[in-house]
């Protein structure tokens, strides 16, 4: 049924900072008003909690990665649609070794990372690239908030993490980046995901989201872009330089057309294939999942990966297209 007010959860991460800025700068209100709805944009300090809240139904949309969408809301039966593909990580996530500059040296080491996160996925892909598997290392779950401090202790020799922690850790003389997400471009996507039913019933909500996003993108590219970025830097606890360096390793789709092109490309299907087999491997597709096909994924071209009767994750480029066509 149609509703009037919507709640969007976002968490502090370079690719999502525009949402906070859009809320503060009145862009959210402008677009909500335009469609005659109310949108509340709520900031989370803790990414996991924002996903949980969305999965439990307290929020209509959330900023999330493609992998976490599949493992949590989708595996939890919440049919979710990626309304906006905002960026992909292009070096923002990295495998870092202490004192060794070859990835192969990771063999046998303890690797500190946030288990079941994109870092874990990145590690799996990195190991694949040198014909190893997770059996060759020992994973130690470590909270992202403490990763920077953890790296400074002597018993930590390998970490996989994301920005800003990556640049924090790389500030250390003996820290060597041996693999990063730019080597698997496009595989770690930062999305705006909304509840499919809500989008179906209220297309205006999704349109407003797209409108907000691309107006904010324009702002960042435009004349007062520096001020906008400065505000985002501050909100994420750093300064402009720090923020710019994080942006540099993020492939932000400033133009909707680029995002549409990416979303409709074949690469997304290939990526999701990697992702779902990784998740199935880790038993994260649900306890009853018999294969990686258990949860269906509908791509932008309506092709379905896996179980077509249980589609819970959809890529939908139509709203970005509307933005690209200026029809919002």
């Amino acid at each position, binding site marked *: 049924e149609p509703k009037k007010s919507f709640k969007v959860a976002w968490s502090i991460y370079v690719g999502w900072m525009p949402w906070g800025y859009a809320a503060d700068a009145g862009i959210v209100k402008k677009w909500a008003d335009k469609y005659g709805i109310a949108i509340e944009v709520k*900031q989370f300090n803790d990414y996991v909690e924002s996903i949980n809240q969305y999965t439990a139904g307290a929020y209509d949309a959330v900023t999330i990665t493609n992998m976490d969408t599949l493992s949590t809301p989708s595996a939890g039966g919440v049919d979710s649609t990626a309304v906006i593909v905002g960026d992909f990580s292009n070096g923002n996530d990295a495998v870092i070794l202490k004192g060794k500059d070859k990835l192969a040296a990771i063999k046998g080491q303890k690797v500190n990372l946030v288990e079941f996160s994109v870092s874990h996925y990145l590690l799996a892909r990195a190991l694949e690239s040198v014909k190893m598997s997770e059996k060759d290392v020992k994973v130690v779950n470590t909270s992202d908030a403490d990763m920077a401090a953890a790296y400074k202790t002597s018993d930590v020799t390998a970490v996989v993490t994301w920005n800003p922690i990556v640049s924090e850790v790389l500030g250390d003389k003996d820290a060597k980046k041996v693999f990063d997400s730019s080597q698997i471009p496009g595989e770690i996507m930062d999305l705006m995901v909304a509840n499919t039913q809500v989008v179906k019933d209220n297309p205006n909500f999704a349109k407003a989201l797209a409108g907000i996003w691309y107006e904010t993108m324009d702002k960042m590219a435009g004349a007062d872009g520096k001020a906008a970025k400065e505000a985002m830097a501050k909100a994420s606890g750093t300064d402009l330089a720090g923020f710019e360096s994080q942006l540099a390793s993020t492939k932000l789709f400033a133009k909707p057309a680029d995002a549409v092109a990416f979303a409709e490309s074949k690469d997304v299907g290939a990526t999701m294939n990697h992702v779902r087999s990784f998740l199935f491997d880790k038993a994260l597709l649900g306890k009853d999942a018999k294969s990686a096909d258990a949860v269906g994924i509908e791509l932008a071209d309506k092709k379905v990966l896996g179980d077509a009767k249980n589609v819970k994750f959809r890529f939908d480029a139509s709203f970005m297209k509307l933005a690209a066509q200026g029809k919002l």
Partner: protein
Amino acid sequence: MRLLNRKPTRGQELALIALPFLLTAAVYLVFSALRLADNPNDKLLPSPAAMVEAVRTLAFHADPRTGAYIFWVDTFASLQRLFVALGLATGLALVIGLAIGVLPVMRALLHDFVAVVSMAPPLALLPILFIALGLGEASKIALIVIGCAPVMIRDLALRVDELPREQFLKAQTLGASTWQIVLRVALPQMLPRLIDSLRLSLGPAWLFLIAAEAIASDSGLGYRIFLVRRYLAMDTILPYVAWITLLAFVSDAALRFVQARAFPWFAAARAS
């Protein structure tokens, strides 16, 4: 003379009190200097100057965008949450604790339940709390209340138990109803004890506050600490920790002061 009987003079006493504080400061300064000599950009143990600078920026420079003085906004947000939550917890403890302590029926109904609930780790139940109460102030306050109130309730019920049975009998011979006994015998004697209980809860309350702010918030001392922790910005974290410590210490002292002032009979009654 036995060491036990040896009392330091006032001057010695002050010196002794200051000693561990100075020692801690000295140890910090030495290690900080060592690390900074090794790597001038070391963030783990920043120099005092760096900390002062960080605090100055946060406390005395208005945020250009919002015009807010972040340090004070954080402090105000945290204290507000803390005080509201502790107020609620205290109220709950008073009502339920008195009920359990005075009425056998309520004791049967709630005593064991509260005992079990007080053992549950509230942090692990956060997702449910957030769903039930939303992500606003309500859930942060609720976390503190849920974390502190059961312990306070148990404590207070125990304190009511410790009142001599004779007082209740005596009150009845003076014609008191159950309600009057609660109001004129149990309640006024519980108020100063409630302050003790509140003082003990200050530590856990701060803990829960920081935990709640770390997860979902956009201001507060705990929020800031966790935000800048990603950058290992100890130059902000350490002053914030010191500030929290000071705030907690002052609240504690204030509570002791209120107790002594408002309940002049209590110190003597407790001693005997």
